């Protein structure tokens, strides 16, 4: 039980990464694959943030003077993830636009029916 107590955030993050990886590996539909990539990205972000957490910590903002600096959580992973989320949506939109063009060209989104995309 205490193992679960300590690692529940890690379990959530790894669960998301593996479910996303499963979707990417197994599904045939291109849009489903992109949904899997987005779930995977959320999992990686959650993992990075939970690495930076400190037990009983506070957010790294000095909004009132009585907040002490010693108990603040690590700001570096938060800064990295913040930009990663915004880049993620732009890259996702680019991937979806490629999917739309593939559909206009081949008339299907099934990766096993598109000859050049089969593996």
């Amino acid at each position, binding site marked *: 039980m205490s193992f679960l107590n300590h690692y*529940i955030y890690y379990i959530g993050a790894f669960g*998301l990464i593996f479910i996303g990886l499963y979707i990417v590996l197994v599904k045939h539909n291109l*849009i489903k694959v992109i949904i899997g990539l*987005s779930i995977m990205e959320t999992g990686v972000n959650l993992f990075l943030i939970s690495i930076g957490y400190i037990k009983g*910590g506070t957010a790294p903002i000095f909004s009132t003077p009585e907040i002490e600096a010693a108990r603040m959580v690590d700001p570096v992973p*938060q800064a990295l993830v913040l930009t990663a989320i915004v880049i993620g949506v732009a890259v996702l939109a680019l991937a979806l636009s490629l999917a739309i063009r593939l559909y206009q060209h081949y008339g299907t989104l099934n990766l096993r029916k598109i000859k050049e995309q089969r593996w």
Partner: protein
Amino acid sequence: MIFVFLLVLLMLIAAIAASIFKDLISAVIAAALVSLIAAILFYLLQAPDVAMAEAAIGAALVTVVFIIAIRRTKRFEE
């Protein structure tokens, strides 16, 4: 603590649902639920900046982009 357990469980169930649904719009809504719960977890991990970004982008804009793309292609996975 029980609250966090329930949230993580619900998040994983939503992610599995996103992989099972044949209707792509349902799958996208399930993925948006994953993002929304991840935003709550970010807030509980004392990262309010990231929680705001995830709630505004992961749950809203990503869903809109997906739904526009699905409208321009096919709705059901065969």
